[in-house]
């Protein structure tokens, strides 16, 4: 563990006069404090999630299992299979973003831990940013795992070009931030880890189904194409698919011009980040409520 957090053999009284005992060991600058708080939330969330098999199974395991079940029971042409693989890999990232961010937020809410955070002067933006960073890490794992499974199943994925990878990463980050901001009001309304996990997973799955597997197979969509095309999960999935999946005729399926979708996605993610910080401040760090 960092910071030398090993139990020493100090035998003096806890409040003894030794310099190392009385001195505050932390950086006192505002920016330093913000960074430490954000990293604290990131580190704690990752530790916590790594030991939560239910969150890991849902976030990382469920989409590839869905992919394998569908592709094993239905015949797809290579283009459709590639598009479906892209859609379901992004579904993994969506579920991971929502559940990883949301599950620990729900635990903190359930135990009134925000009362303690407020008394310590925790920065709401550091709280939000730290949890988002952890969610991004797990969502990236989920995305990579989903794509990895489809590669093993024969879907051609190309990550050799720096620009396509950079564009895909930007699309992925935008998508993750949007979905984590969405998680805040849902968790506050649920106020229970199990309910929150269930509701957040449903949001991801409904988003996936309503938009025709994240805009990949529009014939399966419930929403019309023009509406779906504006949604962040569709924008991000089409961007990533166009950049990474090299199946022929991807362009004809609506994934052409992937990088042009980054602009609206960027606007979405900026808005979501601001929305998330404000919600965190109003819903979780508002000291007038018992949370």
């Amino acid at each position, binding site marked *: *563990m*960092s*910071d030398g*957090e090993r*139990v*020493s053999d*100090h*035998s*003096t*009284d*806890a*409040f*003894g006069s030794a310099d*190392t*005992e*009385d*001195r*505050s*060991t*932390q*950086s*006192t600058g505002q920016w*330093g*404090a913000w960074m*430490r*708080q954000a*990293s*604290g939330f990131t*580190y*704690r969330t990752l*530790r*916590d999630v790594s*030991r*939560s098999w239910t969150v890991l199974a849902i976030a990382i395991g469920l989409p590839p299992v869905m992919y394998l079940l569908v592709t094993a029971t239905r015949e797809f042409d290579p283009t459709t299979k590639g598009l479906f693989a892209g859609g379901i890999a992004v579904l993994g990232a969506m579920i991971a973003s929502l559940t990883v961010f949301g599950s*620990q937020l729900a*635990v903190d809410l359930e*135990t*009134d*831990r*925000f*009362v*303690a*955070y*407020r*008394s*310590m*002067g*925790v920065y709401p933006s550091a709280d939000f940013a730290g949890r988002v960073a952890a969610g991004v890490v797990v969502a990236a794992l989920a995305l990579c795992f989903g794509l990895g499974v489809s590669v093993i199943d024969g879907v051609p994925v190309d990550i050799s070009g720096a620009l396509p990878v950079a564009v895909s990463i930007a699309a992925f980050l935008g998508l993750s931030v949007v979905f984590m901001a969405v998680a805040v009001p849902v968790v506050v309304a649920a106020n229970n880890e199990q309910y929150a996990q269930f509701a957040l997973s449903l949001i991801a799955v409904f988003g996936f189904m309503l938009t025709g597997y994240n805009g990949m197979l529009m014939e399966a969509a419930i929403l019309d194409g023009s509406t779906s095309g504006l949604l962040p999960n569709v924008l991000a999935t089409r961007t990533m698919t166009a950049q990474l999946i090299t199946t022929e005729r991807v362009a004809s399926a609506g994934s052409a011009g992937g990088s042009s979708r980054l602009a609206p996605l960027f606007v979405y993610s900026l808005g979501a980040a601001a929305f998330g910080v404000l919600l965190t401040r109003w819903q979780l760090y508002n*000291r*007038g409520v*018992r949370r």
Partner: protein
Amino acid sequence: MSQPALVAENLGKSFGEEVVFSGIDLTVDPGEIVVLLGPNGTGKSVLASCLAGGLVPSEGTVEISGEPPAAKHGMTSFLLQDALCLDRLTGRENIAFYRRLNPSFTDRWRTLVETFGIADALDDRVAQYSGGMRRKLELTIALSVEAPLYILDEPTAALDLTMVSEVHHQLSTLRDQGKAVLTTTHLPMDADIADRIVFMTESGVVTTGAPADIKSAVPPVIETTIGNAEAIAEKVIDERLFRGEGVVRGLLDSEVEPAEADEISEVRVTDPSYADVFNYYAHLKS
């Protein structure tokens, strides 16, 4: 005279229509331990949260060293019972989290985990801890923060008597260093360390003062064996008897002379303990 560490005036807190408390005035001076004593469910934890800056009071004001609570880091160390630690993390990881969160966190935790006897369990997950071990870990976190004011919500709950004494020693050490300490409790034994007791019931603060003054305001106690309870039932306030270790005790009715009660067979009249003070204010006075 130095500035009070904590000043609360006309403090009230409601959640919707539910009034938790109202009209509470409270001060804590540097180098003073104030024990907020009262039965469960009287709003002590909510009051502590308001004082620490975890909740905003519905009415009244709180100032810590002349500023609003939680206006900046390091003003207060707040122990909120059963709320600090995450079950799936180890004790060490929980400490590391609060070390990052609170810029006023010090290395004291290294000594405190030894003192509280949880050093060997630091790498176990908190889910495996007993209630007492969790409390010791929370105390370690709260007492590792360098602050002029410590607000501790039920710090001795779930601890054995030896550890209660150790916590009392730690709080006394803080007081000797000029720190202000406010601790809530429903355990009369915690009054042992008080410089001042504030007794809180559902009606609000019913009395406050130095321990000796609080005790002297309580009527004498009449005690007898459990089998002899009927002999004193009519001599005590509200005919209410409280069980002790193999005895029953009651607070002498003002119309009964102590000498008269003392003459009853197997009965003795004695000074009130803190448990009697607790029973008097919690169950009789209110």
